[in-house]
């Protein structure tokens, strides 16, 4: 019966596409719902991704470049990680390379902490992708790298400018050895607040240390050197707790945020930081409550509309269903026929909803991570899941339509 079942699904889609008005109405309704589900899943995902800094972190930024040494920041990181309500502390270090009057700053980040680096988080990647492992590097879109060279033969000195792009390799010579990186992504330059001409690059923390160790090998007093080339840009302190459940439970994650802020204001740290940046509890709470309402409406509404659709299909097509049963369709056959229509409408609606969201985000400029595979997959699963009551309902209803009704249509 496999052949027959597959054909029934195919044919039910055919039948559905012919009932154009009904299909159009439901595709649009589904699109709105799917849009809401996608957006709310995106927002939920945002609690741990793009919104990580905004929603549950305290940021201590250095008052100026090259002021906080590695040692100071390392001690501050240790101090901060013992504060109550801290989930993790992410210090952002960089190494300076100077050449031609401009500075190249190479930052190190654990790819798993990428959302803590607000300036160069994955959603400001303008081409390519974020670094995932060693040997990969991100550079700013219009980076002009200046390399000084001295040609011993002839004794001339000069400058080489290069403009590396996606896929190029960059070789960094620290001390004796060279390390080669592949440019896997570029980021929007506007995100970075530094002197024009200065270039930022991002590698993994391990790679940063490889570069550094190579630099250091030629020196006797390594600690001194570290403190003269490795600096801390900022420390991001992520508060403990779930943003989503906090809205329900009285805001524990934001209480943690405030506790951390209070700690930084009353404790003397070794580095010189600006006053802590964070979002006020009330603002965050309101935003999350709005999100939760969106999510609830999307889920309940989705289940409701899907059920309504199933109800209406079996109602509009009552005689059709009775007729199909009379001419030899089993209940399962009939159900398969309605399934195709619901499936078609919901998948088409999902795609339309996705497009709608893309347009909406384009217009509002809101940054929600929706085009990640996980978000889309989750959203699609949920759209499918909220159909379950609809499928059960349509199954129940088709079961109940007696085939004898086909003969009583007047």
């Amino acid at each position, binding site marked *: *019966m496999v*052949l*027959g*079942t597959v*054909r*029934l699904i195919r*044919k039910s889609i*055919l*039948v559905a596409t*012919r*009932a154009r008005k009904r299909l159009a109405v439901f595709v649009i309704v589904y699109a709105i719902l799917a849009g809401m589900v996608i957006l709310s899943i995106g927002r939920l995902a945002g609690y741990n991704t793009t919104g990580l800094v905004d929603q549950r972190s305290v940021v201590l930024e250095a008052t100026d470049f090259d002021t906080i040494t590695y040692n100071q920041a390392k001690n501050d990181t240790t101090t901060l990680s013992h504060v109550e309500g801290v989930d993790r502390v992410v210090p952002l270090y960089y190494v300076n390379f100077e050449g031609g009057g401009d500075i190249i700053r190479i930052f190190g980040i654990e790819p798993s902490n990428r959302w803590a680096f607000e300036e160069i988080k994955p959603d400001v990647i303008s081409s390519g992708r974020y670094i995932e492992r060693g040997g990969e590097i991100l550079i700013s879109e219009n980076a002009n790298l200046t390399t000084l060279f001295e040609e011993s033969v002839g004794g001339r000195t000069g400058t080489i400018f290069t403009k590396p792009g996606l896929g190029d390799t960059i070789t960094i010579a620290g001390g004796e050895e060279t390390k080669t990186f592949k440019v896997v992504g570029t980021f929007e330059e506007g995100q970075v607040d530094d002197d024009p001409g200065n270039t930022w690059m991002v590698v993994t923390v391990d790679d940063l240390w490889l570069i550094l160790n190579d630099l250091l090998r030629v020196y006797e007093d390594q600690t001194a050197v570290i403190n003269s080339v490795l600096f801390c840009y900022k420390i991001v302190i992520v508060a403990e707790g779930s943003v989503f459940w906090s809205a329900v439970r009285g805001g524990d994650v934001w209480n943690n945020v405030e506790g951390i802020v209070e700690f930084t204001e009353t404790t003397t740290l070794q580095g010189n930081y600006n006053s802590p940046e964070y979002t006020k509890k009330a603002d965050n709470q309101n935003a999350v409550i709005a999100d939760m309402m969106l999510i609830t409406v999307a889920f309940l509404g989705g289940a409701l509309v899907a059920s309504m659709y199933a109800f209406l299909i079996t109602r509009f097509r009552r*005689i*059709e269903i009775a*007729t*199909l*049963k*009379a*001419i*030899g*369709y*089993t*209940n399962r*056959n009939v159900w398969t026929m309605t399934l195709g229509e619901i499936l078609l409408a919901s998948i088409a609606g999902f795609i339309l909803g996705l497009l709608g969201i893309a347009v909406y985000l384009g217009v509002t400029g809101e940054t929600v991570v929706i085009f990640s595979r996980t978000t889309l997959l989750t959203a699609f699963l949920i759209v499918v899941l909220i159909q379950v009551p609809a499928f059960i309902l349509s199954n129940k209803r088709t079961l109940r339509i*007696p*085939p*004898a009704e*086909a*003969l*009583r*249509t*007047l």
Partner: protein
Amino acid sequence: MPREKRNRSGRDLIIAERVSKDYKRGRAEIVRAIKEADMEVKDGEFLAIIGPSGCGKTTLLNLLSGLDQPTEGRIIFDGMDTSMIGEERFPLIRREKCGFVFQTFNLIETITAQENVESPLWPTDLNDREITEQAISLLKAVDLLERKDHKPLEMSGGEQQRVAIARALANTPKILFVDEPTGNLDSEAGKSIMELLKKLNEEHEVTVVLVTHNQDLLKYADRVIKLQDGRITES
């Protein structure tokens, strides 16, 4: 009036034994639509059941075809007691042996004539090509091949009913149940439908059970059963 068919044993295809059917109307009232009916349908015959509106013709047809179960008595369909056949198996038996033609045609309005004719075969394990061939040959038989891509509402009532007959024949049934097939047609279109049914009965040995209130159709039948107020009064 019964006329012997070629090579027919005249064995009973369907037997109704003291069959009654009750309907609930409203909360308490029970209507007995069929009262202790005893009858049989013989293999290969063209049987007409006639009676005024509301006398229980459709109800009887539903019982004979197994679309509905009797309240009392039993129906033996091709040797099987219909009350013994499970609800999931009955559609398969219908698919194998029965065809239905309805007063209001009951075609699926959103699909073409050809697709309507194909539709009974969709759940089967025939491949697409076989199904299409069958539909085309049936549309040819009802003389509607050139209308195969039209949707029901683009066709006349007579044409729609011919499509419905072609659909009823898609599974090459042994028996055709026909409920007031000309009720929505003018006499000319009605005549062509009846002639088509007659031809199927005579040339393709399809048993036909026709219910109607129209005396004019009786001339096509081999045998007539009269139904009056739920009771068989003459056969």
